[in-house]
């Protein structure tokens, strides 16, 4: 049985290239791609799929990633030919059905976030961040306030935050977090000033706890002339219950592939819609959908929004992902949306208590978990040298995906665990039982963990070799 697509190659005669294109513009060498038979293709990729973990087959307690069930109806709806075959440059009158969906999604996301307006165009969370900080920049520039070159970002923030701020031309200033997970206010006060454009925050923070003084932080930042950016990665914790707009945030992105149940697809595509308060509306990225009083829908362009930060992709963003998010929201409705955060919090707090019961240490034991929480296995490391990585790899042997590890870096040997609302008590109880067993193994036979996983297609890979002797494409 072959495991490379390149091993399936049947011979075909060379294709005659057109004679009306000058020879110097045509391929010099034949296209050296394999020619497998359809059944060979089907088997090869079906078998590869079986080497993957996925939500459809495994539990993913993966913090900060909100790996919830991706309802299949959303996929079916997005695949309807009336959507799937629509060319992006179809004139608006011939695509009213799609525009209606997108317009509704804009309205609903504005309602969920407590913001004035939404643009759906960013292709992923990081592009939403870039759009968000670009709007902050455009806002200050429009007021003639050109000295605001600094963006404040907590040390525990997602790596995309400083990367996006840098890409938008800002200098990044890191703010430390205190031992209870809250932000260092003294440091904040010390650094707020006429050179600060804004601050990027996640709430609940990446430490899995709610920043209780958020209103105070917002007042201080606004008082200094800065704006507040909300990283929507943890929105599942407060969906339908707390609106970022009401917390004092000016601009935010949403990760539709986290909070709104669109699939991760093995790395993407996502969608990173941005939402803003009224004063940032003129700067929103294009295109957006608008509806006339008569109900006719059309795209907004540069003529409508001359101060827009512009366009981030050639068309309207990841429309197929937006269709899925729309279907999910429409299915849940007002009541269903409120249940999301309630049951996400129930699952997280239940797991935290149960895992503490079987001996694990919480990073912030005095705090309520949000939709996720952090354990630290520093005690295991001291006792037997077992690290968070070893616990994570051993979980794979039990058919459970590893939690997020070593993020946030603030907590040593940490596991960031987010069960999401779509997992049942039985699944959580099994996870607790497996974690209890792993803890016993760590103390009794640590080598079992150090060499894990044992039952997957491959064991731990030589990543140093991969980087030192780069093989990133099959040799011809």
């Amino acid at each position: 049985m072959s495991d490379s697509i390149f091993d399936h190659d049947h011979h075909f005669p060379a294709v005659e290239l057109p004679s009306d294109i000058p020879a110097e513009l045509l391929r010099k060498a034949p296209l050296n791609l394999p020619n497998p038979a359809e059944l060979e293709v089907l088997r090869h990729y079906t078998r590869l799929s079986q080497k993957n973990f996925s939500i459809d087959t495994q539990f993913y307690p993966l913090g900060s990633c909100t790996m919830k069930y991706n309802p299949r109806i959303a996929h079916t709806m997005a695949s309807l030919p009336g959507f799937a075959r629509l060319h992006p440059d179809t004139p608006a009158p011939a695509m009213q059905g799609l525009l209606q969906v997108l317009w509704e999604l804009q309205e609903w996301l504005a309602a969920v976030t407590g913001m004035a307006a939404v643009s759906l165009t960013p292709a992923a969370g990081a592009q939403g961040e870039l759009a968000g900080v670009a709007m902050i920049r455009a806002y200050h520039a429009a007021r003639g306030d050109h000295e605001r070159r600094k963006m404040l970002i907590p040390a525990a923030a997602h790596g995309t935050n400083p990367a996006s701020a840098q890409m938008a031309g800002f200098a990044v200033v890191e703010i430390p977090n205190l031992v209870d997970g809250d932000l260092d206010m003294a440091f904040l006060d010390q650094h707020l000033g006429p050179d600060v454009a804004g601050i990027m925050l996640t709430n609940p923070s990446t430490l899995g706890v709610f920043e209780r003084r958020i209103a105070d932080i917002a007042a201080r930042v606004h008082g200094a002339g800065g704006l507040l950016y909300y990283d929507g990665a943890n929105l599942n914790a407060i969906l339908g219950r707390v609106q970022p707009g009401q917390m004092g945030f000016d601009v935010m992105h949403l990760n539709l592939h986290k909070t709104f149940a669109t699939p991760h697809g093995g790395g993407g595509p996502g969608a990173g819609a941005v939402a803003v308060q009224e004063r940032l509306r003129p700067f929103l990225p294009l295109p957006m959908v608008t509806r006339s009083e008569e109900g006719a829908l059309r795209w907004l362009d540069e003529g409508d929004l001359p101060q827009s930060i512009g366009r981030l992709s050639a068309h309207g963003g990841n429309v197929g992902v937006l269709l899925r998010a729309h279907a999910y929201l429409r299915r849940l409705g007002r009541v269903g949306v409120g249940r999301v955060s309630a049951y996400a919090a129930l699952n997280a707090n239940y797991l935290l208590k149960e895992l503490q019961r079987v001996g694990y240490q919480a990073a912030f034991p005095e705090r309520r978990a949000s939709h996720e929480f952090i354990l630290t296995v520093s005690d295991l490391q001291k006792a037997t040298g077992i690290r968070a990585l070893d616990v994570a790899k051993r979980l794979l042997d039990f058919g459970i995906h590893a939690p997020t590890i070593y993020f946030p870096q603030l907590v040593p040997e940490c596991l960031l665990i987010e069960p999401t609302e779509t997992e049942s008590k039985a699944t959580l109880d099994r996870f607790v039982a497996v974690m209890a067993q792993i803890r016993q193994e760590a103390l009794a036979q640590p080598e079992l963990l150090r060499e894990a996983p044992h039952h997957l297609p491959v064991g731990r890979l030589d990543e140093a070799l991969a980087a030192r002797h780069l093989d990133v494409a099959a040799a011809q």
Partner: protein
Amino acid sequence: MPYIPHDGLETAAMLAAVGVDSLDQLFDEIPPNLQVQDMALPEGLSEMALRRELEGRALSNAPLRCFAGGGAYAHHIPAIVWEIAGRGEFYSAYTPYQPEASQGTLQVVYEYQSFITRLTGLEVSNASLYDGASGLAEACLMALRIQGGQGDDKSILVPENLLPGWRRVLDSILGLQQIRLVTVPYDRVAGTLVLPAEAGDAAALIIPQSNALGLLESVDVLTDWAHGHGLLAIAVVNPLALALLKAPGDWGTQGADMAVGEGQPLGIPLTGGGPYFGFLACRKAHVRQLPGRLVAKTVDGQGRAGFCLTLQAREQHIRRGKATSNICTNQGLMVTAATIHMATLGGHGLQRTAVLCHERAVRLRELLTVVPGVRLPYGGPFFHEFVLRLPHAAVAVRDALLGHGLLAGLPLSDWGMGEAGDLLVCATELLDEADLLAYRDALTSVLETL
């Protein structure tokens, strides 16, 4: 409760284990004044009602025969492609940060990278970017890092006949870092680029093949000019056309340094503009400046071959503010579909499809130019798109043809290019002779009545 499995007894038991009386109490650390009671959202729907509503919306989008291109193309997608890409094991998998649990996705990406390097004639391909246009912005930033431009002396030479939608994306993204975009004009008669007068302080020249008018550029001359002036050459290419056209790695004496493009023609449905994917390939010497994920082949402790993400120190989750890009989530599932698509067609099938597209377009051009009043402003070679000059405003003609069930093309005036009568028309393998004849007849009748 849609998608929430808890029954009343389970909820009660879990609340008791946590030590709270109600779900609301789980939020007791959040100041009450921040907690809202209600939001302006509609009531939820059953799956049955949802389906009925959305099927209605989908049907209200007019079904049109597609003769429009401009960066997004209607192609046949074999049934097997999304049958497999839609499998839960691909569809609902996470980013392959745990390689032992992601060998399927990782091997698919490795095969994808292999296919893209062979199409482009370059050595390294990343695992995808958001789309072609944002991918080009990343390629420009990469060129600036390679060339080490500092301070104000940062610029890129951008052809005037690059797709305008792509130019706007460059303006938005590169403008944030004060990078100057210097426009290279095109010859108004030929429709192709004239060699820039000077290189100035530019880091790179962008070379589109084809250009926004559908015409093929003299890529060898342009690439050599760029290298002769110390610039990098960034090829912007349609991956399907590369089954036919010279690979960027073979352009000019040394070959282009990077190739970037819109991957949508490789098995991705149009879906109103996305999700598509951007591909970016480069020389091995420049791999450390490449943005986005990269998969490598390696071995495990027992010597078994396996795949993992590599050179992650380029990326934001490690390098943070100094990363090559802020990109995290990419277009993974689209890449899975594209890989299966390329494998299903095979090298032979991709070449046959590209040739068919070209033949259809040649035939369509022949049919349409005999319609009274229709002219061809440009005579140069093309792949599968060409400009027609109509005796009436192209927007009006395009709108009238909607009534005949045709999306007739893209009026260049929508892009601020060309003349009012210019319409960019595309043909692909999806259109048969009857479709082409129907276009001719409809155009004839519309031009008579306008």
